[in-house]
Structures are given as C-alpha cells and as structure tokens.
C-alpha cells in the first residue's frame, strides 16, 4: 500500500431536513458471502472470477463468470422454502438478513414505516428459462404454480418484505445495470419525503444462466479471455475486452438520522446525495461525451450540498468494455474538470465481475467500507495503460486514504445514469 494525505473538508450541512444514514450492510457475491469477507477480498485485490459451474458452458463463447461459492440455500433458507425462491430472491434474502442484523433494527415495532426496495435488472432468469423449457418439452400443463411468483423481477423485494415483516413502501427499481443505485436513490427520496423511516434497499441478480451468457455474448459485451478468468475483468486497461457476468446481492439499511440516533444505532455512513439522468440517445450505448453521467454527477453533488473538491474517492461504473470506460472518463472530466486527475477512482468490477442490477448497491457497500477503514480499493488487472483512460484508477494495489466523501456511479442499457454521494460516519453528527 501507498500513503497519501487527504484534506479534511468542512462543508455546510446538507440541504435536506431529513438526513439518511446507513446502519446495516449485507452482501453476497463472487468474492465472499458476507460483507467482512467481501471487503477483505476487495481491499486485498482478490478476484472472484472463475470457470462457470452453474451450467455446462461448453460451446459458449465465454466460459467463466463471477459465481457465488459455497452457498447452501437449503441450510440458510429452509429445505422447503428455498425451492420456492429463484436464486436471485435467495441471494437478496441472505444479504437483507445480514444488513438488518447489523443494523439491529426492530422492524416489528413499527413495520409500516419500514420499506423494502430491491432492484434487479432481470429477475428470476433461471426460473424463466426452465419454465420455457418445460412448456416446449412437456407441454403447458406441466408448468409449476410457483413459476410466476419465482420469475417476476419484483419478487426479491416482496420476499425480503415477507422475511423481515416490513410493510412500508415496496417495489423494485429496474434500470438494467443501474437498478440498485436507483433503489438506493429512490429510497433516499422516500425517507426524505417522510414516506418511511427506514428502507432496506439494494439489488439482487442471478444472471449466470445459458441465456444470460449467450445473450450478452451475442452483443459482444462479455470478455472471452477464457484462458485467464481472474485476469479478464480489466476496467480502464487497454487490453479490456468486455465485462464479466456475475451474480450476487447487496443490501443496506437506510434510516432517517434521528430515528437511528434515537435507538442508539451504530452509524456506518450517510447517503448524502443522489441524481439520475437519461441519455435519451441509444438503447445500449452511453451518450456521447459522457454528457448524461456527467449531468448526474453535477446534480448529485448539488443534491448533497457538496462540490467537486469535497469528493476524495470515486467508485466508477467501469465495466471493462472499451466504450464504457472511454465515455465514463470523458464524463468524469466534464463533471470534475482538472480535478478529475487528482481524485483516486477504482472499478471494483475488476474483482467482483459485473453484477448487473446489484452493481450499484454492492459498490455502495464497498465504498462505505473504504471510508470506514481509510483504504481505497484498487482496480486490479492493470497491465497496459489506455491513453483514453488517463485518470488515477488505483492500479492493482489498495491505497491508504481517509476519504470522507465519495461518489459511486452506475450506468445501464437504456441510457440510465445514477450518481450517489456517500459520506463517512465521521461526517454525521452523533446527536442533534
């Protein structure tokens, strides 16, 4: 690790009467099955990418992915219950339970004031594919009565609410690879509005299916570095050749500040600002010049009552595709000007792979851990610099920097852009 000094900032209080803090975090993904394991891998620069085991990928252009390992859904969720949950719902429940346990929040004491919002790009893909296969091979009357509730993309949100007994606002934000960033942002707005006091928010995705891999392969979106899975996700590197499909869930407990203080909760950080924009340009390509994501960054800073000088770390979208990082770099320069060169940023997709709808919430969890421990995670697999991506992407090795405010960006097919501003626990008053 290298050392670097950070300048502490003292910006004004945020321009919203109700502030929203994070009191619990949960995650399960290719690099670990809970937040401590995930963060340990990320700060150490360990990849979770490996050959696909969830189906026989022989004959597919890409044969590796970021799979969750050693997860026994029957043991965790019950022998009967887990069969009625698509994998993406199983993963969501696991992450939500971890987050709620850490928060120590008693949902039963006021269940109608606790919402759930779990974003997903695709929902129950594995169930959907098996169901179509059943119709084709055995006929329509052999489809399971559990098919529909397992497949629908809102069911992670519904199932988490059932599991926790949370009766407040509930839906799934769906915006491809920005879904869980939207879920966190819209939850922020809901709590600010007074529609809930706490929301269990995040994302879940289980896309490592035959159609998931074949569909993204058909677009030329996936890395095909089959001989080197761990080296395949290389955001910002000149040799990047596509993203790595990955699965998992990440969930945070978002809570109104006073509500958290009143119950003596440990505050892990603040969701300080949020903005979302659309490129309105092309179905799958980011907008020219990174205009849409730059606008999201500008608006999120304004929403947070901060300026570019306050941001000390950026968790980039950084998918490891040629076009994404080129345009994202342009967008960062547009939003931050010359300061873009001075802010360390990283794409942790280099280790986790791309969890699609989960990416935004997983990267929010990672960013909160980074600010808690004063360690900025690296972008691994940096071998050949790309002159189009000339910002400081914390190549290969984590860096000791105590960041107090950070930004996490997400972009999705459909032209969706989300920028979240997160604050370290030290930026939140311990009482008021």
């Amino acid at each position, binding site marked *: 690790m290298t050392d670097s000094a950070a300048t502490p900032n003292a910006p004004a209080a945020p321009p919203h009467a109700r502030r929203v803090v994070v009191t619990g975090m949960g995650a399960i993904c290719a690099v670990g099955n809970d937040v401590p394991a995930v963060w340990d891998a990320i700060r150490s620069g360990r990849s979770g990418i490996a050959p696909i085991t969830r189906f026989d990928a022989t004959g597919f252009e890409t044969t590796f992915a970021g799979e969750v390992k050693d997860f026994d859904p029957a043991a965790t969720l019950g022998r009967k219950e887990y069969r009625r949950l698509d994998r993406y719902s199983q993963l969501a429940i696991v992450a939500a339970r971890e987050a709620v346990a850490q928060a120590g929040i008693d949902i039963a004491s006021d269940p109608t004031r606790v919402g759930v919002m779990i974003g997903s790009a695709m929902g129950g893909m594995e169930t*959907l594919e098996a169901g179509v296969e059943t119709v084709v091979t055995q006929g329509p009357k052999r489809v399971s009565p559990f098919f*529909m509730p397992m497949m*629908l993309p809102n069911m992670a949100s519904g199932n988490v609410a059932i599991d926790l007994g949370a*009766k407040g606002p509930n*839906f799934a934000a769906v915006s*491809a690879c920005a879904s869980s960033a939207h879920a966190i942002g819209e939850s922020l707005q809901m709590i600010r509005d007074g529609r809930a006091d706490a929301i269990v928010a995040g994302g879940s995705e289980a896309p490592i299916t035959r159609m998931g891999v074949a569909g993204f392969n058909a677009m030329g979106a996936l890395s095909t570095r089959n001989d080197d899975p761990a080296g395949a996700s290389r955001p910002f590197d000149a040799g990047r050749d596509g993203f790595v499909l990955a699965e998992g869930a990440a969930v945070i407990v978002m809570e109104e500040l006073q509500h958290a203080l009143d119950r003596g909760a440990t505050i892990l950080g603040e969701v300080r600002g949020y903005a979302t924009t659309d490129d309105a340009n092309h179905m799958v390509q980011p907008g020219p010049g990174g205009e849409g994501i730059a*606008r999201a960054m500008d608006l999120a800073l304004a929403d947070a009552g901060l300026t570019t000088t306050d941001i000390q770390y950026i968790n980039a979208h950084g998918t490891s595709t040629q076009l994404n990082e080129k345009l994202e770099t342009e967008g960062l320069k547009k939003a931050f000007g010359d300061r873009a060169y001075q802010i360390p940023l990283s794409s942790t997709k280099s280790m986790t792979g791309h969890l699609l709808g989960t990416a935004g919430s997983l990267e929010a969890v990672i960013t909160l851990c980074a600010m808690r421990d004063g360690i900025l995670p690296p972008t691994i697999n940096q071998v050949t610099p790309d002159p189009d991506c000339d910002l400081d992407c914390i190549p290969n090795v984590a860096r000791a920097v105590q960041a107090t405010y950070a930004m996490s960006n997400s972009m999705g097919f459909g032209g969706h852009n989300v920028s979240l501003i997160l604050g370290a626990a030290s930026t939140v008053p311990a009482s008021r």
Partner: protein
Amino acid sequence: MQDPTPSSRRVVVTGMGTISALGLDLPATWSAVIAGGTGIAPITRFDASEFPTTFAAEVKGFDPAVLGRKEHRRMDRVTQFAVVAAREAVASAGLDTSSAPERIAVIVGTAMGGIETYSENVRTLMAHGPRRISPFAVPMAIPNMAPGCVAIDIGAKGPNFAIASSFTGGANAIVEGARMIRAGRADVAVVGGSEAPITPIVSAGFAAMGALSDRNDDPHHAVKPFDLHRNGCVLGEGAAMLVLEDRQRAIARGATILAEVAGGANTADAFHQVALPDDGEGLVRAMRGALAEAGIAPDGIGYLNAHGTATEMNDRVEAAVIHTVFGADTPPVSSTKAATGHTLGAAGALEAAIAIEALRHGILPPTRNHDDDDPGIALDVIPNVARKARIDAVMSNSMGFGGHNTVLVFTRPA
C-alpha cells in the same frame, strides 16, 4: 417557472395515451369501456389449443411499423406499446419535449418486460445453441427498455427507470412521477405502465396457479369481476401513459388540465408471495394513505376503479377492504378488467386513465358480465351499464403478487 418551495408544488395530468384490447388510442378505449364492450377473444398470438385457457385480451390492428420500419424490430411488443401510448399522451398534452428535456422524467411500470423476446430466444437456444441468439435479445428483453425507448423517442433526459411490482407497476409509476415533481426533481413526468404477456409461458404460468378463467367456450363472458360465478382473470396486453406536470407550469403554458394527482400510496402486505391476508390490511393502509395525502374524506370519492381481477380471493378481500375503508356508504365501484383483461403492470395506469375519463365526463364505467350478486360482496358494482354521475374525486386500486398495494386518488382540476 419552477416553484421556489418544491413541497408546495401540485401535480396535474395534462395528457393521456392508451393502447389496449379495446382500441389503439384512449378515445377508442374509453368509448368501448362505457359502451360495455370487451376486447377479450380467442388467442391469436400463439397456438393456444393445448393450453388450459385459450382466450385473452389482445391488442388488435396494431401496426408496429408506425414506430419506424427499422426501429420497431428492435423493440419488444411491451416497448412498442409504451412508446405508442407515450406519443399519444405527449401529443394530447401539447407538450414540447425539446424544451428543458433534462427536466422531463420517464417512469414505466411493467411486471415482466420483454417476456416474448426472452422466451423466444430461450427456444432458439434450446434448438440451435448459444451462438444463434440475437444481439438484440438482451436489450429487447430487459424491462427498463420501455422507459429507455420512450425517452429516446420523445427526447426526455430527466430521471428514468422502470418499476417492477407485478400488477401495481403502472400505478407506482404515477405515484413516483408525482413525487418527483413535488420534490422539484422534474417539472414533467411521462409515466404509466406497459405489458405484453400473451405468450405461451405466461399463459401456462398463470393457468398453473389457477388464476385464469377457463370458460373457453364463451370468452366474451368469461371474466366476471365481483360476480358470484367468477372463476379467474384473463391476460390482457397494452399500455397507458400519462403526462404529469407541475401545475404552475401547466397553467403558464395554457395546457388543458385533465385532473389533479391528489394522492397516492404504496404499501406491502409482507404476508405471502401470492395470497392476500383476509382483512386486506395492506390495501386498507394504501387506500387510507392516498385519501390522507389528498386531504379527502372517504365520502368524497365518487367512483372507485377496483383492482377486481375476478379471482375468488381478490374480489372477496378487496370488497371487504372497501367496506372497511368506506363504512356503510361505499361509492360506486367497477372493475374494467372484464373489458380490458388483466394487463398486469399496465393495469394500474390504464385504470387510472379510465378513472380520470370518468371524472372528466361524469360517466361511471360498468362492470361487464355481472349476472349474479355475490352475497359476500354487497357493493354497487355498476352492473353492465354505464351510469351518469357528477363526481369530484376518483380512486383507483392496484394489488400485485409480492404483496404490493398501490392506490391513487385524482380530483377534478380546481
């Protein structure tokens, strides 16, 4: 033009567009609804002869080439519907979307997105292997492409996402769009729902749950909301989009205000994946929440467009909830799903549009196919024939698998 204190901003509806089994635009849908028509007929979109239910509410006479000869091939039917309905809504609002496009949000509710694209590509994969999948399979299948393509079509660069909440998605999109405008995050929101579920897998999936009527010999009379002999819903397809606008902005540009979005609420049952609690507690809270936000007492509601799917459980629980919320003095209630079919994620928006038309025209749409009262329901369901009534506020209920409840209240523009 933006109100300096966003929380005081009021939100109005200035445009609406629909495409449904009853017609390709809102005037056609509305006139068929009040005439007691139905769009339900035998399925033509696939060979349903071996399926438990062989009828559905399909959109008829739709030529997707109106979206562009090349463009329409790159959109699943769910996205085509959303774009068509959004165009009608924007045109009827007289909205210039090139003016401050970054202040225009788009939110579309959909239960399942491009399910036809997805399931057809799974068949291709099974038959021909992974390398025969279309590069458009993923972008056409993902549910957010409906709002994504609406944004591209009208040039809206503000907040944009899809809402999946099974059958409340369209209603949730309206709630969230109104909230966004009130919070000052947008000045205009083009919001609603879209669904194109009439596919083998969805038909088989709903039939496996026992959710669909199987009166295959009489499709026109199969769906009987609130009737003693109801035996299930029927799949419907279509979209409905509304233009929501900051009221001051709408007044300043001389727009015709169709209604005010007075209240909206969203709750979860946290009870069961697909079953409802007998007391419908979550729906009670959503209805009361929407009334409270609107500042309207229950007796101020002149018409309620019910969720009314015509399943035994839904209609029984929803009726009990209506009695809980309104007491002895329940308003006239109808379910228009006997006409439109159950359009899933589009339903909440389609029924909001119908409820707003009822408010504007003073005509309450009937519940079709109502022959025998269910003694357990005891509601005025406006049986079979539309009714004239001057009303000042309407409510629209939506419920969905996963335990979602969303309720909207619209009022006559002040």
